[in-house]
């Protein structure tokens, strides 16, 4: 029902917290705007032409209360037992159309994980210096004291900080939830807080419920596996234009870093839409792999969706970079 349009209010320094702007989230004309409309009629009585105006109708824009919480850190934050001040970065964006104050809360007691991270004291900081991690310039958050005030479209970067208990083992996961809600009110979308909006207009809870929730998890053990993909296009004329029938040669490097091991690692990559896998091009560390399953580490799978799969076994940091290559042609 609520349509999203890219109209954001300008951010004034006194009201803005952090100076981040994210236009993609903006919703609507600023709260409190008065829209005036008058109709006119022209008519003739005999030879006389007359013009008359109607009454002026004023519609005032109400405030939508909306917020988006997004985790900026990777999904897993690698930690060790007894580690302190382990941080996860989030952004809180005012996706409504009026300036709004937000309350921030972190909860580390989540039932579905292996351990409860222990909130550091303080457990929530603003990433005041914009560094992306906890540093001496970052200001601690204290609920009710420095709740962030955000203009529409503006965001603030927040670090949640926890300590890791000593009684965890490799592979244990501890989940935290980070929530932001509008101080004017939250709840079911459409709930009206009459006259509580900016400038005295009504405030109405938007589709987000005026509350945002992000999650993050700490993973004990510290092995992280990353894959980096690159491509080279070779067309049939010896150039690099992505024409139909041109070939795309993909190279993916997989690297495990940190301590511990990642067991049963598999690399799987979907053949992109509008391309066709070139049989016999799958390689691991330069060695050619067969497209058939079960005879070696690699295979090409055609259904339900075309993809290549390479089994990499157990990876540790010492395993080094694993390089996978395959080719497709553009349909």
């Amino acid at each position: 029902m609520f349509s999203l349009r890219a109209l954001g209010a300008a951010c004034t320094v006194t009201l803005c917290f952090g100076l981040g702007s994210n236009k993609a989230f903006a919703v609507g004309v600023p709260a409190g705007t008065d829209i005036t409309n008058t109709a006119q009629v022209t008519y003739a009585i005999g030879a006389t032409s007359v013009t008359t105006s109607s009454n002026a109708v004023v519609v005032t824009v109400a405030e939508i209360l909306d917020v988006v919480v997004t985790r900026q850190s990777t999904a897993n934050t690698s930690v060790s037992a007894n580690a302190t001040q382990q941080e996860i970065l989030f952004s809180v964006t005012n996706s409504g159309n009026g300036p709004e104050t937000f309350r921030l809360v972190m909860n580390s007691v989540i039932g579905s994980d292996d351990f409860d991270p222990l909130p550091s004291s303080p457990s929530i900081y603003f990433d005041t210096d914009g560094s992306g991690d906890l540093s001496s310039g970052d200001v601690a958050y204290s609920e009710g004291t420095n709740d962030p005030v955000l203009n529409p479209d503006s965001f603030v970067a927040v670090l949640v900080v926890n300590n890791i208990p000593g009684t965890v083992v490799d592979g244990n996961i501890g989940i935290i939830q980070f929530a932001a809600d509008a101080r004017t009110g939250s709840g079911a979308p459409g709930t009206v807080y009459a006259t509580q909006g900016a400038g005295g207009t009504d405030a109405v809870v938007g589709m987000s419920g005026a509350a945002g929730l992000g999650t993050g998890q700490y993973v004990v053990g510290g092995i992280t596996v990353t894959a980096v993909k690159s491509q080279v296009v070779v067309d049939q004329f010896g150039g690099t234009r992505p024409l139909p029938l041109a070939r795309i040669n993909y190279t993916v490097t997989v690297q495990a870093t940190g301590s511990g091991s990642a067991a049963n690692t598999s690399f799987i990559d979907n053949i992109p839409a509008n391309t066709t896998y070139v049989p016999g091009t799958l390689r691991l560390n330069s060695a050619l792999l067969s497209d058939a399953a079960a005879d070696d580490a690699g295979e090409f799978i055609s259904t339900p969706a075309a993809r290549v799969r390479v089994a990499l076994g157990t990876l540790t940091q010492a395993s080094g970079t694993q390089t996978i290559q395959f080719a497709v042609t553009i349909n």
Partner: protein
Amino acid sequence: MIKGNRKVLGIFALMACALGSQAFAQTQGCIVLKSTAEIEKEVVNDKGEKSRVLVPAGKVVPGTEVVWTVTANNVCKQPSDKVTINNPVPEHMTLVPNSAFGAGSDISYSLDGQKFAPAGQLTVRENGADRPARADEYKHIRWEFKNSLQPGATAVARFRAVLN
């Protein structure tokens, strides 16, 4: 005396003016134009039956569709001819395509308030070429009522626009 004649002339002039303006005031005041902005609300009666009613739109959240209605009521004893209602598309709002309605009228639109054309016939110049204007680009709406508006009768024009 010249002065005296001037006075007399002055009085005649005043009388003529008074008569003239009285006649002008009558034609000027013949149509009372009213405009409303409303939103549709679903109501449920005691029997659980649902219906939609229009209620005044006071404070409106972005994304809401507002129904604008203009009524022209002829309060004089003679018919009004060539009744034409003009309404700009309200600021910060986007016209809902095909929502303009007015029984007995020809409806046209304008991008600039000067040139009016029926739906689909306005063009916009973009990247050096002309393309048809979209309904969400229309800035003005015009209803030209084909028949005279009889004494006591009311012409109705309506359109919908969504708050940006």
